[in-house]
């Protein structure tokens, strides 16, 4: 008996250690190519750009979309002769969605003399890397969009779309003024992204004098929402605001419908993604209202050209996250071309001096790192976003 319990305990400890050790090794699995013969090289040194994103785990979609967008921008720039004759050497590292791994990778990028860091795709991880990269004067552009990212008093952080404040201002106005509904329940997770969504949307409702029928907060890892959804159902809302990442949003929608909640789902960019539609099911997702600066690949000539190039390069359909990463990287490439000195202080100065017409709209970075100042509304019909 005693032995048996000891054995279980020992096993658990070993399992934990092994899991931990594995996390460590695979996290730093990518191996940097040795810098090509630094001595008498005829071609100028390449410019190192490091991308840190989630390529394994529940948020792997986000990491891969970000990577595709950045890679496309870099490949096009390199094919056109690079930056003032220098090629861009883009490398990717997997943060596995873990803040500790992300900060470790940020240190590593600094030691490898990176000019900038693209990442992470999760706000929490991007926040964790800011102190390290700012201290090293390395510019960082992230796919995260939590308002907290812009409150760090760092001139080195940039976001490649816009914050939940801008998303949710647009969304709340649409629900209250266009749909003319004010019976709204909220469910959001308490991760950085979910909390940002929650606070911004609630602030807009409060401004309009509307109190949500229910305001439920869940943990980011939870997958069964019966208890909270039952409480929400009791308040009989017309609209359910979802503030969570793709998979969790899809599961919330799916479980809400199966519990008999008939409210229209509204939310920011995650609601428009294929992952959300697949997880929730096309029927459940039908009619959901979302907001994003990038509604579809057919918006204009620029987005069509981007979607075609993306399809050719990766054999998959382009979407919002890839597009904003493409814009973000393109702005930095333009900034690199503008300044001969690629040191952090000069590069961020160049980024702020540019007005860039991108796939998402007009970018003009302010002192806190926000470049894009508006979003659009779309409605899901048969699994596709239809612009309003």
């Amino acid at each position, binding site marked *: *008996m*005693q*032995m*048996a*319990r000891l*054995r*279980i305990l*020992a*096993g658990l400890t*070993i*399992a934990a250690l*092994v899991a931990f050790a*594995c996390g460590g090794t695979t996290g730093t699995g990518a191996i940097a190519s040795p810098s090509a013969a630094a001595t008498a090289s005829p071609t100028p040194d390449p410019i190192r750009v490091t991308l840190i994103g989630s*390529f*394994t*785990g*529940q948020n*792997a*979609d986000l990491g*891969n979309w970000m990577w595709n967008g950045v890679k496309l921008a870099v490949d096009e720039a390199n094919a056109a002769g690079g930056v003032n004759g220098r090629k861009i050497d883009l490398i990717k590292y997997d943060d596995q969605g873990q803040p500790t791994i992300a900060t470790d990778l940020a240190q590593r990028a600094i030691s490898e003399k990176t000019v900038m860091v693209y990442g992470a795709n999760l706000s929490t991880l991007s926040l964790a890397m800011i102190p390290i990269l700012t201290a090293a004067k390395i510019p960082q552009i992230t796919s995260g969009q939590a308002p907290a990212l812009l409150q760090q008093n760092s001139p080195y952080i940039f976001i490649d779309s816009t914050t939940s404040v801008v998303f949710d201002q647009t969304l709340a106005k649409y629900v209250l003024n266009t749909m003319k509904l004010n019976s709204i329940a909220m469910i959001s*997770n*308490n991760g950085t992204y979910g909390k940002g969504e929650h606070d911004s949307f609630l602030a807009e409702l409060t401004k309009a004098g509307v109190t949500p029928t229910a305001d*439920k*907060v*869940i*943990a980011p*890892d*939870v*997958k*069964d*929402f*019966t*208890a*909270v959804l*039952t*409480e929400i*159902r*009791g308040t009989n809302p017309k609209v359910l605001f979802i503030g969570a990442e793709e*998979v969790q949003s*899809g*599961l919330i929608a*799916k479980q809400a*419908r*199966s*519990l*008999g909640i008939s409210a229209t789902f509204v939310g920011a960019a995650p609601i428009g993604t294929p*992952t959300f539609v*697949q*997880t929730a*099911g096309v029927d459940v997702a039908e009619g959901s209202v979302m907001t994003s600066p990038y509604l579809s690949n057919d918006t204009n000539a620029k987005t069509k050209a981007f979607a075609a190039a993306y399809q050719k390069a990766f054999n998959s359909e382009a979407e919002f996250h890839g597009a904003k990463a493409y814009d973000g990287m393109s702005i930095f490439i333009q900034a690199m071309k503008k300044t001969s000195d690629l040191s952090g202080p000069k590069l961020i100065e160049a980024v702020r001096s540019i007005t860039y017409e991108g796939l998402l709209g007009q970018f003009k970075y302010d002192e806190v790192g926000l470049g894009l100042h508006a979003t659009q509304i779309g409605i899901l019909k048969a699994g596709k976003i239809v612009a309003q």
Partner: protein
Amino acid sequence: MIYFLQTLVGGLGMGAVYALVAMGFSIVYRTMGLVNFAHADVVMIGAFLAATLFVTMHLPFVVAITLAVLLTAVIGLGMERILRPLESKDLNLMLIGTIGFGIMLQSVAIVIWGSFGIAVPTPIPNVPIDVGGVIVTTYQLFVLAVAGIVMLLLYLFLDRTKLGTAMQAAAMDRSAATAMGVNVSTSNAVAFAIGSAIAAVAGALVGPLLYVNPTLGVYVGIKGFAAAILGGFGSIPGAIVGGLIFGLIEAFAAGPLSAYSELLTFVVFALAMMVRQTGIFGERTVDRA
């Protein structure tokens, strides 16, 4: 009251899945005295196989689940065969072997299916049935029914068949059973096959409720393991009761402190274990250590 009943229904649905996972842990433990740490990942493999057969190959769900169960049972047999040389040396070595096997299964899953995961649609029309204000979905009933059938089959096998009885004998006293002509290796292999088959049932059932990805095993496995301990490690009735109770604790913890439900669930679990260290059903059938 409706809130209470609705939470109860939700908790039982996931509880049935935890019970199945716990049964897989327990059947191997009661037969060999071994904690199979690869079990959580076997659940994940079972879920992926069922999801692939159902979503990608468009087979009917019942066919997909059956094939997934058979394939996963074969994986279980393979795992036992690979790890068998370790058993005669030291059971602790075999335990570490199962950890390694689990890591391998996770890596293989990433190689085959990628890290994205598969969203599995609900296989039967998921009609909400209103029972006096409490919503029960058809799929929840399906999960409970399948879990119930599996539990009954396992009980009949262990209690009413010769092989099942022989396995119990091998579990109680290995040398005596061998002397009586019971082949202990066969007994172990069957335990692994059955444990893996039940894991596949759990994985296949949980797919449409959650989302199938390579870390699914971590999510469901830890809770199934905790459920097995709660019920009394090695006890089959304990696994069932432990699983259902664990599902209920989790569902009710999600209400008042939804943002910290995972934490609350494991705090309640830890408190329960302090009060009754051997779990609800104790270790009545096995005493090998």
